[in-house]
């Protein structure tokens, strides 16, 4: 490894790095705008001017751009040389010609790269005496505010948006000093990663419109390292709060997970914690009360019962909360599970079990390096940042293959995409398994899409099999894991779980406990149910049964930070701290345990779940150990990961692969020809659905049907149909869509809930004239 001499210091460099990268790597700042670690060099801003003296030639020093000059051994580089300083000062002066001097009212204040650079490089006081060029702004939707006059034309926004995130509705228009970054017409940015523009832009052109509604100066924000609670990827975040309210969430780099970016759900979903309907006071039988009285009420209910007690944890509840609830139930001799949906429980446990057998899921950084992937279902909504990582793999030439039932944005980059109805997914996966197992795919002369997939997976250097658990059955999971084994060690397996701590929840939930609990409640054997961060009554597939079953309860005790259907129905409700208001641990899709810290406290007393359970135990006369030691008992040598560190893989006893029940036992009575499929979108998640900004972008509620099967059934595009499920019916208009499997109707989650059907369940369809 060679070294460059940077203002007299020997700085080692990686081969292929340029001078700017070398300096930044060594924590030495060379002023720059257009260079961005994720986006690379462009050479447009011309701010990173340095003076370069070639090692052993008599050549005079020259000023050049550090981002475009490769580091070479012995190269002498000076940032401080007068000639370089002069260039940087001129560049700043040029950039400030048209920049509005609106710093006092600019949302970027305090973290403005332009301001920092202006101060560092100059300050070149204004010499320009002409008029400023001005631009109109665009309405880019509820999440991002546009202020074009502040633009310094570094092209970071379009390079991120078009090149990195593969969006196509933000671009650079016009030319000369009128280059304009915007959309063809006003309207919300469509890319699920658009919010990163806020951080990518070095000045205040793109700012956080949600933060803006309740602005605080950034140096007044309280921050602490946190983990995004909105999916199982576990992106690292830096929330900022002020005066007892959460104002915004930003990316916090994790070297193997999210490095520079997070998804819009992660950035804007936090509004759930400021939602006007958020429960903030304990409630007993519909009336607000004190924490003490609520604990008393709960304790007396529990004490008075002879029956079994159920404890329903959650995949979005942290490890501590789930473990404490389980500990309490152990003490009380009740049943615990973290899953309200038995199908989801088996699928999740099957997935964790196969990961334990086959090897850990790859990190996002590793996913970016794969060259072939098979993707089952939709990742954009279930693990947005895995979608973004796969976009990077695609940019490098990876072949992406899809088996999916309903539209998924990532499929636009597919090499092979096959729509498969939910009920046939398992068969198709088995077919693929046979193709690969027989090693015949390569020679197979029938060149079907499926053999293409087999061939591309078998021919890959590094491949990935990944599925969205929420729309998979345990059989599919086990077939996929067989596939991974057949493909060998160059193939990685991963799942997008449902819930930030689904992996952890699975480790704590015995197989079959969800169905056991549901049946026990239905049979009246469980008369008291404690629900922590779960929403059984709002479940799409099992909600109907849970709602009926819960009528048997003498007390429904709910702990949550959002007002779910279950929380609304609670007899005793304990509002708990939201994720930014407490510390805890999540286990992400890789099995990585990551800690998050308390960012701030609200004025109300909002304990976390573990605290409420500990207090409740005390009121019941039990004394529970503290969460760390409870966890230490379950997972040997478990250390609670420190917030702000990279976390570590959890070691847990192997889960048994659940025995596979017949695929569609739930609704066999219904002999309809149509199946439901979940049409997901990236804002669709339990917590985020309480975030008004994101929800303003909810796609129109329609029934998406594949054109040929619709036409066969005499259904017209745009016509109205009535869909009926176990708990109700709904009239929707039909939207033809090629990305829906034959015989399948793709509908949004709220429609599934209303109809009482899950992904893959049968549906009755009636035409409305």
């Amino acid at each position: 490894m060679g070294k460059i001499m940077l203002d007299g210091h020997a700085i080692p460099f990686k081969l292929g790095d340029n001078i700017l990268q070398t300096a930044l790597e060594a924590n030495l700042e060379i002023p720059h705008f257009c260079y961005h670690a994720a986006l690379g060099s462009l050479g447009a801003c011309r701010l990173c001017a340095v003076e370069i003296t070639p090692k052993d030639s008599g050549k005079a020093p020259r000023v050049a751009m550090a981002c475009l000059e490769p580091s070479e051994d012995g190269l002498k580089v000076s940032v401080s040389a007068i000639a370089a300083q002069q260039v940087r000062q001129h560049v700043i002066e040029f950039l400030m010609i048209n920049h509005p001097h609106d710093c006092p009212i600019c949302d970027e204040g305090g973290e403005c790269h332009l301001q920092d650079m202006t101060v560092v490089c100059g300050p070149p006081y204004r010499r320009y005496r002409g008029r400023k060029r001005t631009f109109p702004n665009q309405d880019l939707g509820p999440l991002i505010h546009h202020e074009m006059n502040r633009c310094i034309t570094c092209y970071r926004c379009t390079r991120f948006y078009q090149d990195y995130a593969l969006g196509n509705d933000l671009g650079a228009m016009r030319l000369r000093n009128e280059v304009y970054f915007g959309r063809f017409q006003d309207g919300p940015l469509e890319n699920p990663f658009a919010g990163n523009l806020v951080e990518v832009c070095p000045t205040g052109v793109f700012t956080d419109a949600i933060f803006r509604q309740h602005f605080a100066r950034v140096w007044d924000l309280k921050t602490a390292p946190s983990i995004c609670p909105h999916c199982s990827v576990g992106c690292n975040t830096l929330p900022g709060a002020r005066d007892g309210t959460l104002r915004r969430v930003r990316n916090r780099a994790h070297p193997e997970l999210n490095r520079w970016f997070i998804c819009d759900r992660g950035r804007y979903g936090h509004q759930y914690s400021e939602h006007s309907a958020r429960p903030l006071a304990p409630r007993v039988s519909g009336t607000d009360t004190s924490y003490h009285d609520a604990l008393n009420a709960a304790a007396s209910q529990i004490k008075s019962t002879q029956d079994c007690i159920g404890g329903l944890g959650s995949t979005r509840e942290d490890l501590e909360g789930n473990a404490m609830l389980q500990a309490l139930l152990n003490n009380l001799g009740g049943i615990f599970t973290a899953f309200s949906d038995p199908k989801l429980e088996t699928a999740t446990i099957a997935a964790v079990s196969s990961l334990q057998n086959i090897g850990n899921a790859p990190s996002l950084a590793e996913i970016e390096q794969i060259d072939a992937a098979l993707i089952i279902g939709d990742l954009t909504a279930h693990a947005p940042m895995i979608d973004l990582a796969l976009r990077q793999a695609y940019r490098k030439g990876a072949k992406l293959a899809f088996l999916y039932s309903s539209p998924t944005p990532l499929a636009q980059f597919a090499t092979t995409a096959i729509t498969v109805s939910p009920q046939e997914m398992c068969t198709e996966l088995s077919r693929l398994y046979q193709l690969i197992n027989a090693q015949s795919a390569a020679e197979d002369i029938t060149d079907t899409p499926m053999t293409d997939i087999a061939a591309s997976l078998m021919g890959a250097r590094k491949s990935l099999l990944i599925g969205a658990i929420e729309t998979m059955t345990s059989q599919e999971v086990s077939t996929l894991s067989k596939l991974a084994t057949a493909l060998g060690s160059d193939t990685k397996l991963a799942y997008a779980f449902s819930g930030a701590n689904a992996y952890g929840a699975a480790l704590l939930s015995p197989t079959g406990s969800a169905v056991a609990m549901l049946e026990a409640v239905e049979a009246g054997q469980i008369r008291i149910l404690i629900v922590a961060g779960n929403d059984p009554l709002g479940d799409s597939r099992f909600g109907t049964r849970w709602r009926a079953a819960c009528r048997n309860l003498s007390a429904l005790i709910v702990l949550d930070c959002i007002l779910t259907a279950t929380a609304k129905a609670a007899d005793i409700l304990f509002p708990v701290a939201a994720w930014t208001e407490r510390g805890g641990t999540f286990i992400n899709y890789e099995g990585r345990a990551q800690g998050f810290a308390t960012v701030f406290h609200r004025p109300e007393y909002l304990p976390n779940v573990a605290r409420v359970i500990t207090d409740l135990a005390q009121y019941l006369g039990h004394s529970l150990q503290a969460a760390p030691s409870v966890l230490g008992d379950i997972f040997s040598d478990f250390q609670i990961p420190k917030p702000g560190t990279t976390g570590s893989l959890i070691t847990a006893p192997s889960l048994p692969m659940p025995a596979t029940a017949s695929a569609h036992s739930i609704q066999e009575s219904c002999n309809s020809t149509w199946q439901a499929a979940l049409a997901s979108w990236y804002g669709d998640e339990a917590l985020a659905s309480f975030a008004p900004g994101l929800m303003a972008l909810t796609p129109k509620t329609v029934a998406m049907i594949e054109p040929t099967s619709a036409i066969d059934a005499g259904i017209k595009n745009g016509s109205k149909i009535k869909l009926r499920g176990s708990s109700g019916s709904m009239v929707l208009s039909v939207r033809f869509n090629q990305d829906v499997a034959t015989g399948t109707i793709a509908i949004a989650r709220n429609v599934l809930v209303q109809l009482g059907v899950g992904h893959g369940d049968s549906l009755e369809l009636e035409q409305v004239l």
Partner: protein
Amino acid sequence: MNNILKELQKDLLHLPRTHPKRRAVAIPAMQALQAELGYLDDAAIEKIAQITGLSTTEAEELATFYSLIYRRPAGRHTVRICDSVCCSMRGADQLLTAAEEYIRTPLGTVTPDGALTVLPGICLGLCDKAPAALVDGEALGPLNDASLKALLQRLQQKD
């Protein structure tokens, strides 16, 4: 839709979404559509996007770069008067002022009768005919106040 566009559309129909040809024909497609419409309104940009498979924003990125792709209405006849160095030395600036006065419409806009758009342009490669103009693509020069007025008058009467 004219034949050139139809041909282009047919060519692209079965190409993959990311095929480089889709971009490469964007400007020819715009030129063909503009030949028909006189300028490209928003609907035309949408049409280009539909034919090429680019997004409307991507089409707009290109359309707004070029000086000969008009995103604003143009008259039935366009008169581009060169205002670069050689023509300017030979009186182009006065010609432009005279033209603006004569048509009583600002440069770059359409006369109320829809007949004319007069606009300044960069060097037309007609420096040997300075001051020169490109009238509906046809080179003219050298012009003077009188010949320009006569020209504008003639164009206004032509359809």
